[in-house]
């Protein structure tokens, strides 16, 4: 393969992928594992919809249903949406800012493997007496040691491990975006996807730390007889809700902001216009990020904090509608008067706008504290956040997949299949979730595994389930499309969409050093600027020379593996008849983790150089199709 220098080619394929620190390969790993978790959690959703097809159905037991709602939510948010977004952030952000890699390639790999092993740890719960069953929010006292089963321990430890991974990746992105921009790429010339990645990473740093603290407290409560959340012994259950939502609300923005960024890349490209109101978009992103931390209590209106507190948070919540509205109008104005191309990516991006508005409107409805007592814990809430997540994040992700696929894998996805997929998904999505608004308003509670006949819920639940089937068919079609396009689609050059941003200036496949010469950026949308004012290629900012690259390392894998063992050991503390002492497992895990860290610290590793001759040769080979 031309995209790799000899050092990389000397490794076996498996060893290469296990030890890689290349941001592009890690992105592919994120993409694959995120997709697998996505399919798994999606299947759970289909099972839940089958259970709710008929009144008093007994397809699933109540306990299994509880485990499914919990795992569906947990996996979708932590182990599917986050890694899928990270996949694109990893692949695209360094290319968009003109960098050779992220700031800390080793930490990048560590972030992936921690997420991966944390996800495996949560999933293992199925084999040890059942998955967590207290909802993805894992509210105490339901999740405390008196009432919650072993599954909760898997939730606590698994999320702790994968949370560390997300946290270090977030730090890595911040440092990358602040320090690794190419000459001329000022903050206000960065593509909006980089901006939203930056704000998202900041939110990760500030939001995942409370989550880690909360999970640690819950772990102390459950395994070491703590009493933070046990009212009988002086604890307070509301504290968990606060800590969880101090994390949980920013988490929503952590997920949706990168999707905003993707939309803001796709719409200008296929409207052949620069993004309308770039500066306003940047500041709207920053304001959304800031306000995202000031509104968490709207999840707790019915807890009984008090009327003044509720009012303050209700108003703060409604204020978020303003920067979001700015964004919506900016996307519309970008499209207005543009030369529009409606391919699958653009279909997803443009239909994102009205769907997201629907979710936003119900969001403001839910923000009104007095009325929230009616909506709380009904399907109205379920409909609201699925409009945000599916209509916002997933449409953004599918759009981004179609948009950046030629850059990542060298060929486009089939457009015909893509459009069929889009319309099936779109129709199925609205079928599934629109009726759930009404179901919620007539009083169907969420998280309940069945309902009675003759309450006017039968038809709408049936419609909802049919919609879920249509949506699943669309996702299956997407998978078929990936396989089909891999065999049939023609190879593409570096710039198949007539792109505007820097990632389209690299040849496809992207060489492992990204840019042979760091480009000189002269404007927002730098490649488009060069196409209009220059000769269509980026001007180099440095002479061609040896390129310094980081060595691959197995330590990220082993550090994460050790934490996986240690986490499992802590869970074993609560197991009835463990085969070996939990402390042995914890010790082994600790030794692997800290041993790997020590080895990594002691061993000198200065990376290697790709020689100037190799670079020139690689550029010549990829340049012919770039």
């Amino acid at each position, binding site marked *: 393969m031309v995209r790799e220098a000899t050092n990389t080619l000397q490794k076996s394929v498996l060893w290469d992928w296990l030890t890689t620190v290349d941001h592009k390969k890690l992105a592919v790993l994120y993409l694959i594992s995120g997709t697998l978790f996505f399919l798994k959690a999606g299947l759970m959703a289909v099972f839940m919809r089958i259970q709710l097809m008929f009144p008093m159905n007994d397809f699933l037991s109540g306990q299994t249903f509880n485990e499914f709602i919990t795992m569906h939510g947990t996996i979708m948010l932590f182990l599917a949406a986050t890694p899928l977004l990270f996949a694109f952030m990893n692949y695209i952000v360094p290319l968009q800012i003109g960098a050779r890699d992220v700031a800390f390639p080793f930490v990048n790999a560590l972030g992936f493997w921690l997420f991966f092993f944390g996800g495996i740890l949560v999933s293992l719960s199925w084999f040890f007496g059942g998955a967590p069953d207290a909802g993805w929010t894992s509210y105490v006292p339901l999740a405390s040691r008196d009432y919650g089963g072993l599954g909760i321990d898997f939730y606590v430890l698994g999320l702790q491990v994968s949370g560390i991974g997300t946290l270090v990746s977030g730090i890595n992105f911040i440092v990358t975006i602040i320090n690794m921009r190419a000459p001329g790429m000022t903050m206000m010339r960065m593509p909006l996807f980089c901006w939203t990645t930056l704000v998202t990473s*900041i939110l990760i740093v500030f939001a995942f730390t409370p989550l880690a603290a909360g999970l640690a407290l819950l772990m102390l409560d459950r395994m070491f007889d703590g009493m933070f959340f046990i009212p009988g012994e002086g604890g307070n259950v*509301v*504290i968990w809700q606060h800590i969880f939502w*101090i994390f949980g609300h920013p988490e929503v923005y952590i997920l949706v902001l990168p999707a905003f960024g993707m939309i803001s890349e796709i719409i200008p490209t296929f409207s052949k216009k620069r993004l309308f109101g770039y500066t306003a978009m940047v500041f709207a992103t920053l304001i959304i990020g800031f306000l995202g931390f000031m509104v968490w209590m709207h999840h707790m209106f019915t807890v*009984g904090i*008090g*009327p*003044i507190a509720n009012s303050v948070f209700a108003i703060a919540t409604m204020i978020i509608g303003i920067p979001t509205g700015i964004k919506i109008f900016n996307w519309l104005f970008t499209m207005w008067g543009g030369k529009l191309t409606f391919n699958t990516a653009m279909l997803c991006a443009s239909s994102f706008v009205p769907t997201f508005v629907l979710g936003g409107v119900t969001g403001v409805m839910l923000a009104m504290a007095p009325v929230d007592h009616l909506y709380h814990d009904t399907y109205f809430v379920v409909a609201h956040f699925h409009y945000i997540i599916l209509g916002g994040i997933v449409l953004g992700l599918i759009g981004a997949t179609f948009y950046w696929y030629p850059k990542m894998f060298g060929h486009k996805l089939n457009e015909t299949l893509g459009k069929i997929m889009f319309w099936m998904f779109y129709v199925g999505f609205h079928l599934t979730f629109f009726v759930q608004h009404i179901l919620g308003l007539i009083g169907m509670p969420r998280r309940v595994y069945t309902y009675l006949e003759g309450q006017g819920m039968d038809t709408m639940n049936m419609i909802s389930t049919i919609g879920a089937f249509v949506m699943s068919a669309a996702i299956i079609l997407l998978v078929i499309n990936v396989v089909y396009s891999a065999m049939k689609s023609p190879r593409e050059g570096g710039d198949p969409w007539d792109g505007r941003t820097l990632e389209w200036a690299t040849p496809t496949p992207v060489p492992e050093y990204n840019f042979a010469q760091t480009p000189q950026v002269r404007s927002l949308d730098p490649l488009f600027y060069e196409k209009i004012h220059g000769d269509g290629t980026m001007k180099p900012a440095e002479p061609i020379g040896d390129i310094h690259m980081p060595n691959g390392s197995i330590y990220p894998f082993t550090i994460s593996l050790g934490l996986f063992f240690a986490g499992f050991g802590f869970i074993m503390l609560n197991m009835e008849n463990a085969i070996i002492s939990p402390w042995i497992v914890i010790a082994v895990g600790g030794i692997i983790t800290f041993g790997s860290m020590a080895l990594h610290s002691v061993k000198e590793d200065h990376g290697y150089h790709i020689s100037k001759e190799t670079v020139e040769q690689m550029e010549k080979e990829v340049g012919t199709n770039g």
Partner: protein
Amino acid sequence: MGENLSQPFEKSSMTPEEIRKINREQRIQTIAFGFMIAITLLAFIAVGADVVPGSFAIPFILGLAGIQLFLQLYYFMHLKDKDHGWPNTFIVSGIVLVIPTIVALMLLIGVTKY
């Protein structure tokens, strides 16, 4: 890669100006550190030796903690330095975000309704 990347340099490549600056910085850090230890000791002594009356002890210690926090952020976290815009932004936004968190966790826990 070069063989001698891990070897220390014999002579510093800093200019005399830079060396003077770094020495001064070192002296400031040491003094700040000593002062912080002193006020920490002061807090312990104040309570342990009954120097201040009980009713005044709590505000006194909180006052010392305030000074301590300021010194920590200002000197150890380099809030005082120029060209630290990004780290300073992060520290300040961290403080801004943590205030409602602390207020909520102390007051809004359902015991008293506000």
